């Protein structure tokens, strides 16, 4: 049973490393790329908890679409490298460590008592109906989560409108 732990650790390390890399990288482009790394690692972890569908969506939508959008914008704006790096309030970066420490500590303190280490058994027979499969997601999406699902369409539409208003060039 160590294999899962090993896998977990590997992906966790990848996720963390690339996450940290975002902070270390100067240019947003590398940041974006390392974030993609994190996303991939996460989708792998999703698989380990039997969330195949989400894992897939993670890669397709997130890594595929959203991050591409980011990269696209970064390219579009291509900030001149020689831009002066003005930094007001240098103190903030020194706050980083204590804040991070505290936050982690608090989280772990909260999560400490959680004892749950086994995934629920897969219902015998209809494995494809297990939680996390496309079937389960699909059914839930169009039964319980019908309204949220519909509302997201409103959200998207509005986002499009908003983006249009702000980003479109003059004249048109």
């Amino acid at each position: 049973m160590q294999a899962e732990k090993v896998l977990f650790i590997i992906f966790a390390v990848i996720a963390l490393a690339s996450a940290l890399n975002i902070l270390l990288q100067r240019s947003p482009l590398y940041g974006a790329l390392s974030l993609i790394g994190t996303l991939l690692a996460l989708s792998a972890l999703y698989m380990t908890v039997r969330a195949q569908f989400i894992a897939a969506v993670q890669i397709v939508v997130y890594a595929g679409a959203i991050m591409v959008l980011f990269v696209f914008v970064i390219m579009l704006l291509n900030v001149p490298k020689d831009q002066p790096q003005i930094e007001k309030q240098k103190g903030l970066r020194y706050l980083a460590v204590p804040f991070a420490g505290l936050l982690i500590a608090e989280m772990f303190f909260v999560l400490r008592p959680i004892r749950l280490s086994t995934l629920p058994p897969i219902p015998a027979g209809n494995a494809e109906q297990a939680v996390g499969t496309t079937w389960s997601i699909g059914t839930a999406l169009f039964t319980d989560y019908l309204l949220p699902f519909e509302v997201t369409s409103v959200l998207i539409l509005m986002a499009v409108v908003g983006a249009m208003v702000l980003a479109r060039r003059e004249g048109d």
Partner: protein
Amino acid sequence: MESLGINYHAILPETITASVAVLIMMIDAVARKIERRVAGAMSLLGLIAAAVAVVSLWGRNGETSFKGMIITDDFRLFFAMIFLVVTFLTVLISLRWVEDESLPTGEYFALLMFATTGMLFMSAANDLVMIFLGLEITSISTYVLCGYRRHDLRSNESAMKYFILGSFSTAFLLYGIAFIYGASYSPAAQPVATTNLQLIKERIVAGQLFSDQMLLAGAAMMIVGFGFKVATAPFHVWSPDVYEGAPTPVTAFLSTGSKAAAFAAFSRVFILTFAATSFAVSTGALHTLQSAITNALVVMAILTMTIGNLAAIVQSNIKRMLAYSSIAHAGYALIGVVANDWRAVAFYMLSYVLINLGAFGIIQVIARRGDKRVEISDYAGIGFQSLGLASALSLFLLSLAGIPLTGGFMAKLLIFKSAWAGGFHALVVIAVINSAISWYYYLRVIVAMFFAEPAAGFKRPPVARSMAAAIALALLGTLYLGILPGRVLDTLERARDQMSQARK
């Protein structure tokens, strides 16, 4: 295959506003450029229709639909009314403005309507998912609106700050939701874990939780999220900058609509869910939760009022001053949440939005194109040049200060009353002292307008008919709530009773 609980009537108001928005967009797209009057008229009609829908829903208490995503009770409907009023007045205020500023009309009204939809969902939500969605719809559309004057650096800046901080706080809210979801896990029940508020409430009361710790932490993070939206200290930092930078009509909308919506969600979660059973009788996790929430909110309320008022004293820009004042008012309203009295909060919000919209309307008139005259010094001596505007503004300000015969006073009275009944005596006294402080800076504007010598080259600003209507409505509303609040209060009271029955 059990019923999907589909009930279009239940979401009729939201549907109307959303589809009006879409319609406006389509016309805009088809007819190249939509006439502002058309768009405005459409939105107004849509709002009225939505209001009618809301009224038609009245009296069905605790009825849930869409698998418990939506709940229809007077709480929702009352807040829905508030939102509709807000948008209605905002539309009137900005009807002329969009043209003067030559901004894309269709999108503007569409976004307003979308935002309204989001707010409506926030008050209607019976599930954290819906709250989250509604909140996001509202936020994202308001991000855009803040940056609506694209060539104005201040507008850009406010948009960016609002966006960064907003999404950041959203992350916290989301994390909180996740925790609560986790805490709600109980293998015996069906579904095993849930984001449905009623279920969560039942499980908390029954004490069948996966982890109290997670519940508490989740609650804390949700306070962060909501606290940001309602701008309570220390999560208020964004609002002065954003309010100052945003175009005045948007500021008006922001400081009233999204605040009210956030309070709706806040009350829905923290009063109607976490404080379901009264503080005294609660036990176990619930008791811990309630005491923690109460203490935290008490502190936040005090901080918010004090910071808001003290900082407002030293402001020179009237929008910024009103921003701080609105922070202070969030503090007062928070007292209502502390006292577990959503009716007080609701009434407070109603009167507050009316007053604030009126005030911002007048500020918009005086600021003119491009938000030029927004320093208090710009108000010097305009009192007797344009008596009407000045008197109206004075009345709004005094009402914010809480002078009797205006909504501001009744609202404060209700809040203080329920707080005292709840035993938060010190809180009441502090609040009282705070509102004494607040008189000072509200009077400053009146001093400038009436007592100071007229600033050179001030000429009476033209008041568009729509704007006049908006101000008049706000004025009437304020006075109505101050002098004859009976009806509104009756409504609220009945609402409470019916809901408590429904809860049983």
